[in-house]
């Protein structure tokens, strides 16, 4: 028994060490403007919150949620901004940057000549995207608490949810990147991303849409992410969050599986 289990345990620790070395490379590459760009990433959702949540919110006034709670428009929009910034942050790292390293810099061609394997590269890059995304999420939650859009306890609960959202979109982005042919394909991807951003129950409750459209919207990953985080920061009491978590876990697992399979095929020619 022991002999059967032990080598696998050793292997797991070697694999995580090798994944960490991929993450480490990104830390080493952090310098100059790129660093500034990274740090300032969290201002974007904040700007949206202030403009749409507060500015447009002043025109709207209070909103009655399907559950019956009456909240300010900013309170309604803030968790959606958090969810979509977790999405955007994760995708930025695992699509544009990942694709550049895979296809243009040929970085991984050098890495696979070492003991590091494709799925370890995928994990290492995802971990890096998560470090970045989680920092944004934490900063945004602090702002939400400061603006009285949620309570500290709820913010604490929402943090791991935001991390999960990042993981799911990060893995998805990585899988998508392995199918990309050129930069032009990314135009389509960012368009799709923007459509999700507009219509995932972000700015108006999905209940406002016609039935068929509403079902469509409720099947998208960003809607599930918004639903999960809004439930946590605003406090709706249904059990739908379990479905959200399950959905996001499946997206993450599928994304990682496809990404590492595809990478093996692309790299081990």
């Amino acid at each position, binding site marked *: 028994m022991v002999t059967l289990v032990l080598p696998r345990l050793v292997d797991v620790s070697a694999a995580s060490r090798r994944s960490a070395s991929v993450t480490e*490379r990104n830390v080493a*590459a952090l310098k100059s403007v790129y660093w500034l760009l990274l740090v300032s990433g969290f201002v974007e959702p904040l700007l949206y919150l202030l403009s749409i949540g507060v500015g447009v919110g002043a025109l709207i006034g209070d909103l009655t949620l399907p559950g019956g709670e009456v909240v300010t428009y900013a309170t309604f929009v803030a968790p959606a901004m958090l969810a979509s910034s977790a999405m955007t942050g994760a995708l930025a790292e695992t699509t544009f940057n990942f694709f550049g390293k895979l296809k243009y810099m040929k970085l991984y061609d050098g890495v696979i*000549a070492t*003991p590091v394997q494709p799925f370890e590269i995928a994990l290492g890059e995802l971990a890096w995207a998560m470090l970045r995304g989680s920092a944004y999420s934490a900063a945004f939650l602090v702002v939400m608490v400061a603006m009285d859009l949620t309570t500290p306890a709820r913010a604490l609960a929402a943090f791991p949810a935001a991390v999960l959202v990042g993981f799911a979109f990060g893995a998805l982005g990585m899988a998508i990147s392995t199918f990309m042919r050129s930069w032009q394909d990314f135009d389509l991807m960012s368009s799709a991303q923007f459509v999700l951003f507009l219509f995932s129950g972000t700015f108006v409750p999905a209940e406002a849409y016609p039935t068929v459209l509403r079902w469509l919207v409720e099947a998208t990953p960003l809607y599930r992410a918004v639903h999960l985080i809004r439930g946590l920061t605003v406090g709706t009491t249904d059990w739908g969050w379990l479905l959200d978590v399950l959905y996001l876990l499946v997206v993450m697992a599928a994304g990682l599986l496809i990404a590492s399979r595809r990478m093996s095929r692309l790299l081990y*020619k």
Partner: protein
Amino acid sequence: MAQPLIQARGLVKRFGDFTAVDGIDVEVCAGEAFGFLGPNGAGKSSTMRMVGCISPPSAGQLRILGMDPVRDGPAIRARLGVCPQLDNLDPELTVRENLTTYARYFGIPRRVARARAAELLDFVQLSERADSKVEPLSGGMKRRLTIARSLVNEPDIVLLDEPTTGLDPQARHLVWERLFRLKRQGVTLVLTTHYMDEAEQLCDRLVVMDGGRIVAEGSPRALIERHSTREVVELRFAADSQEAFAGKLTGLGERVEVLPDRILVYVPDGDAAVAEVAALGLHPTNVLVRRSSLEDVFLHLTGRTLVD
């Protein structure tokens, strides 16, 4: 003799319908400098990628360091150093960081990695550029850095795919000199090249590949003896076609080859052959007697037609 470090039997690599490597047998022993020689498209790089455990063989047997490259990939690669045909250095890192981050992929502790990076930069004469980015480096410098990177894990075998292609003469000689030193330290070198002087300089033993197969094998000296004569006489005639004169040379030497601008006569004794040419009443405008080289073997075995 010890167990060979690399052992291939009937090794095949196919890409769809195309067979890049068509059943080759190779053995490389510890401390050897082994060369794959061949024109572009001969299957050298595909073979190197299989040996580097980043390309699964389509058929045949392959053992590296006594292990199976598909199952034990990470364990084998931990003991290999790879210098690919095209430099794939990390453009976002400095010269030094390229070595230290690469060392981390092997699980080498940070402190050791830093020390080794310093040693290797010294070895490839790049210490002064340690903190420079990779992009502004010259082709020769990038090549040396890639070679240094391949040594960062103190490998048992170093795989070098066309280590000096595209470099200027000074840079080539510097790379050769460094590879010599490695060889003297007992590192096993496996390289591909289409430069004959490189193969003659560096390799103890080599195979000539063509169309995915091995067409000859042996030490450079043995190959020349087997597939060429001791000397070659190059004759140039003042005429549009050399063809007309070639007919008159039949019977001279072991073989006569007609090129568009000159005639090559493969003979054991060059000076004697030149005298015979004069005795035949022929007056070439240009006569050159030289020792036969690996290039003659290579062109004889793989033909003169361009492959790509």
